[in-house]
């Protein structure tokens, strides 16, 4: 990348708006910290919470280090199985983000394909896709995700539930969230379809799928980025909710939602730290993604300039 491209990026409207928005700056700093923590979880963790050999039961139920009885070895305390809360959160954050990103990608792929197809082909195909999308949208996302999850569990033999949990989750959340992409992409595809470059491509004898994916798609991707950002917050939250309800990640591979569920079981023993710290991380993660998404939507909306 040459200096001129760098300065062009620096001077662009988007970058200007970013530098002048406190919310955007704060939330992206928080996100960088959280993503970094997730990526380098094995290096940052003081213990591998999945390795039973590292757990020593006399260290169980220790409070955070600043509370009386806490230890500096376990910054945020330990749970009943002597797992370090701080390390569990790092690994949990990692799983939450993996599920979040994967399901956003799945939803985007489904939504963009169906949106392009509906917008480009039109007619019955379009009507069927959009009717289906309408119906799906009229049901709360969590219900649809639960249903997909339940069907997957019904089909898989119980012995595979734990290993397949992460894929089932990605599928359930991805299948729930594609509608927004499809609607947006369909709308812009219908506009693009009538333009001259598409006609030129047709005259050149390029096939329908060829036009859809290599000519129209690049021109309808702008809003997809905004949807994907806001969608990531939703996806992480849905994953956490499903795991909290006990139909998501199993206790052997806990995501943030699973950690909160485990902590919730011991709420009455007065061990508040097991439930509070994962909750804080989850809230900060979702809130920063949402704030960044809001900023991005406003910054890319020419009406608001």
């Amino acid at each position, binding site marked *: 990348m040459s200096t001129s491209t760098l300065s062009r990026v620096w001077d662009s409207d988007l970058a200007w708006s970013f530098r002048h928005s406190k919310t955007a700056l704060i939330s992206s700093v928080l996100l960088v910290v959280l993503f970094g923590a997730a990526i380098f979880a094995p290096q940052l963790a003081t213990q591998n919470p999945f390795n039973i050999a590292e757990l020593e039961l006399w260290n169980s139920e220790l409070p955070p280090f600043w509370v009386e009885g806490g230890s500096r070895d376990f910054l945020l305390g330990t749970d009943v199985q002597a797992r370090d809360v701080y390390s569990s959160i790092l690994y949990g954050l990692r799983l939450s983000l993996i599920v979040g990103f994967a399901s956003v990608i799945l939803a985007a792929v489904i939504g963009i394909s169906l949106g392009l197809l509906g917008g480009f082909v039109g007619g019955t195909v379009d009507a069927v896709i959009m009717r289906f999308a309408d*119906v799906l949208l*009229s*049901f*709360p996302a*969590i*219900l649809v995700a*639960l*249903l997909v*999850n*339940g*069907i997957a*569990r*019904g*089909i898989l033999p*119980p012995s595979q539930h734990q290993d397949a949990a992460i894929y089932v989750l990605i599928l359930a959340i991805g299948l729930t969230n594609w509608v927004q992409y499809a609607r947006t992409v369909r709308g812009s595809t219908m506009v693009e379809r009538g333009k001259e470059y598409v006609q030129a491509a047709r005259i050149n004898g390029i096939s329908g799928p060829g036009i859809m994916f290599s000519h129209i798609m690049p021109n309808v991707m702008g809003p997809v980025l905004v949807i994907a950002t806001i969608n990531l917050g939703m996806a992480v*939250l849905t994953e*956490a*909710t499903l795991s*909290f*309800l*006990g*139909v998501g990640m199993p206790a052997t591979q806990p995501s943030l939602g699973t950690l*909160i569920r485990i*902590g*919730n079981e011991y*709420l*009455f023993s*007065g061990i*508040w730290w097991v*439930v*509070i710290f994962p*909750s804080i991380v*989850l*809230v900060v993660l*979702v*809130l920063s993604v*949402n704030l960044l998404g809001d900023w991005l939507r406003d910054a890319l909306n020419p009406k608001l300039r």
Partner: protein
Amino acid sequence: MLGFLIRRIIQSVIVMLAVALIAFMMFRFMGDPVNSMVPEHATEQERAEVRERLGLDQPLFVQYGRFIARAATGDFGLSWRNARPVSTLLAERFPATAELVLVAAVLSLVVGIPLGIYTALRPHSFNAQTLQFLSLVGISLPTFVTGILLILVFSVWLGWLPSFGRGEVIDIGWWSTGFLTASGLKALILPSIMLCLFQLTLLMRLVRAEMMEVLRTDYIKFAKARGLSDRAINFRHALRNTLIPVITIFGLQLGGLIAFAIITETVFQWPGMGALFIQAVNFGDVPVMAAYLVLVSFIFVVINTSVDLLYASIDPRLRVDDAGPAGGGH
């Protein structure tokens, strides 16, 4: 109007048929019902007999038709988990969910709308700004985290309110109510707060935004110029126009309350339909899942359809569906 009505109802029927199709497919393709009904070492002929008795040898659409006929009478067969009729299970659980959702809905209306009006009328006051900030937090908090915090503060630390169950219930016919006992009412407080919080903040923000928009319109300025009292302007003129979109959103959110009740019921071990559904998802108990799906979808469709019809009868601008383009509106 009649055309709109008929079209809307046909649309709802199609949605219900589609939902029933999903439920039917779940029954038909998740596990073989014959396996659970014949002895382990049954011959192929015995299996075929059972298959015939159950009507499984008929074409799929005939089976689908029968499924709908049975579903319409509330017959979803036996739960795979505890071998009791699904309709009985749901009927036992229904009152708990209905009461919880009712209290949460009333709470969000009674608190949300006045707060919205207040923040719209005094947008720069300290209280309004605080409320606005709190509502942002309220919308961002995952509902189960809110529930856990409520339990931690009011049950564990302060010990004021119960954290699980419905308390004492009184049976009136098949309906069990928690409204008539002190412990029943106490048990309702935390779950209904958790369930209503999201809707409440949403309603408050919506009323605020709509009201501020209405207050800027010409007819309000004109009403001021006529020398009407603030009270008359705000409540007789502005509020009425504010509430139209609020009714719609509230109606649609009512369905959301039923879905979110699943989470609330899990946090507070509330013996409602949502808790039953979660157990069914966990065990892959198809009849219960399918029945819950059909029942909840039916409630959704009824609510959505009536809200649309109500909206069309309140706001004449929406009736233009039949003739010409829609004008104005929000």
